[in-house]
């Protein structure tokens, strides 16, 4: 299974600090995506990184991918209280059309 493992499970920081979340997976992937979920809501796509890419940026988000280590990280810079949510990585493999999610990191940003 290419389901991801994320760490930490929970992260609590002060507003203005950076937050880093990590994701590891087991099999070859086509791409890796990061999603955000506010409590009781659906998932919102944040960023997609393909297997031949090493880094992508989107606003305050920076994602890295190391396929040799089968790992990815999501960095949120200058965090805000509104960034409080759960963040999930999701892997799409080459072999099939299903996307498998990690267990998520619960981020709390204190004002």
């Amino acid at each position, binding site marked *: 299974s290419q389901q991801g493992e994320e760490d930490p499970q929970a992260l609590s920081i002060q507003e203005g600090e950076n937050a880093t979340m990590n994701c590891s997976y087991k099999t070859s992937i*086509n791409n890796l995506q990061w999603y955000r979920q506010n409590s009781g809501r659906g*998932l919102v796509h944040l960023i997609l990184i393909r297997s031949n890419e090493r880094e992508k940026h989107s606003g305050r988000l920076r994602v890295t991918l190391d396929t040799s280590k089968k790992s990815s990280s999501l960095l949120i810079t200058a965090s805000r209280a509104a960034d409080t949510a759960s963040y*999930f990585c999701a892997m799409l493999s080459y072999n099939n059309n299903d996307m498998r999610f990690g*267990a998520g990191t619960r981020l709390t940003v204190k004002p």
Partner: protein
Amino acid sequence: EPEVTQTPSHQVTQMGQEVILRCVPISNHLYFYWYRQILGQKVEFLVSFYNNEISEKSEIFDDQFSVERPDGSNFTLKIRSTKLEDSAMYFCASSGTGVEQPQHFGDGTRLSIL
């Protein structure tokens, strides 16, 4: 911005009954998905659907489950003979012209089996 809509937002059903969860994907999307999330747990893939047929399904998606696109806009998940452990949030998602594209999620249906 177009969005995926799901109805109802909350469904309460007696164990053993059948439920149908409804989704309206984004209109020009071609790939459709169902996921479930048991309270406090990870999001689990159930099924993907393309060109009017199932393209992938997980080990969770057994004979109790079925999906249908009855018309040009709706995408439904049917759960027959519901069990207590079917209680979860069920999310519908759609993506554009390829499975490699980002998926857009609805806000989910909370299914409670009594």
